[in-house]
């Protein structure tokens, strides 16, 4: 069985990769990618069932925080039920989206700001090395340089240092990191293509 799954995975990978270079394989590539998109849709349903089963399990065992789990399951069931009846475009469903989901995500975004500020304050306690100091100083300089102040840009910081740091140092470093990530992704992909790593099961 493992040999068959590995064969299917390798063949699919080679065909999809080949589609980028050989026009004759473009049709097969599109077909396989469309199948993958359909499978991703089915996986979303499986994911929701997984989420439900994890939280149902928590409720059943009365674990810490099970009240939140109950709230999640009730919310999920209600949204699904009314969404099926009313359809997602209905005003009530749009109200649920715009009145609950969007504000909650925005609140988390706000929380993130506080969390990042707290992390920056604690950085030097956690990391008392040169990189930590450079990280904080750079962040402070960029904030000062891009802040909207009543008297305009801070001389030197806003007009010279910030653009130089963000457009030369940071951009160069970011490109270097992204090249490294791309090379890592390439070798990881090759290992999967050779079936050395098999995330689809098997040992």
């Amino acid at each position: 069985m493992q040999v068959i799954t590995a064969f299917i995975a390798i063949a699919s990978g080679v065909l999809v990769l080949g589609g980028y270079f050989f026009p004759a394989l473009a049709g097969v590539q599109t077909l396989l990618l469309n199948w993958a998109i359909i499978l991703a849709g089915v996986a979303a349903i499986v994911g929701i069932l997984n989420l439900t089963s994890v939280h149902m399990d928590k409720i059943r065992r009365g674990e810490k925080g099970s009240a939140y789990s109950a709230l999640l399951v009730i919310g999920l069931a209600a949204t699904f039920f009314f969404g099926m009846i009313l359809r997602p475009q209905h005003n009530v469903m749009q109200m649920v989206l715009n009145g609950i989901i969007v504000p909650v995500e925005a609140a988390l975004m706000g929380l993130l700001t506080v969390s990042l500020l707290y992390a920056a304050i604690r950085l030097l306690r956690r990391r008392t090395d040169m990189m930590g100091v450079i990280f904080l100083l750079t962040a402070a300089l960029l904030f000062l340089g891009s802040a909207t102040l009543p008297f305009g840009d801070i001389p030197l910081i806003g007009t010279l240092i910030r653009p130089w740091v963000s457009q030369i140092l940071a951009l160069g470093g970011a490109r270097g990191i992204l090249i490294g990530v791309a090379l890592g992704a390439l070798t990881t992909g090759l290992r999967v293509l050779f079936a050395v790593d098999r995330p689809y099961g098997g040992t």
Partner: protein
Amino acid sequence: MIQTFLPLVTILFAALLLVAITLWKRNSPARLRDIPALTRLYRMLGLSVEDGTRLHISLGRGSLLDARGGSALAGLATLRIIAERTSVSDMPAVASSGDPLLGLLTQDTLQAGYQAAGVDELYIPTTGRITGLTPFGFAAGAMHIPQNEKVATTIMLGHFGPEAALLADASDRESLTIIGASDNLSGQAVLFANTQDALIGEELFAAGAYLGAGASHVASLTVQDILRWLVILAMLGGAAIKLLGTI
């Protein structure tokens, strides 16, 4: 023509190097530079089994259908080793993800780790979880795990944006060890500020080699180094040619 086939030649060259170096590395011990985060991760694997504490491995929300798939696959390869090593622990490792396809593979990989350790019957399907399908939904769902499930270490390997700060903060409040790596620049910056030892850039893809996943993982690092030098030479060469052209 060159633009079309240069990537193909690069892939074939990398594949050839990977095969050759894997065969070579099989017979020679790996010599790897010290990466504090990965040394800590290696130590935490043993400690979690001895102490009866849980590891939480979060694989982020990298979709396998786009460019973020590389980091997701690297995270899965690491998860496979962690699952195998910690499968006999009283508190099995929990894995979370924010993408449905990645979630399915997470469960499959966890099960494969248990099978490899010969304790298939100990596998619990709910240890592989999809905690949410949007960035903040995923983070909010994953934040519960370090707070409520006797976790000792949170390991974040995969595609994370700034939302990683929420998960790292939740783990920090419980005084957990946090090891983080992302292929996203914002995520990396956030993890650098929030973790004791962050993994930067391609170090995310080195975890397998440091955890003893085999010769192919060590060979991958050598191939990356060779390709990196080629990229550096190409950039310097290109700059030199352009400079000479303007003189």
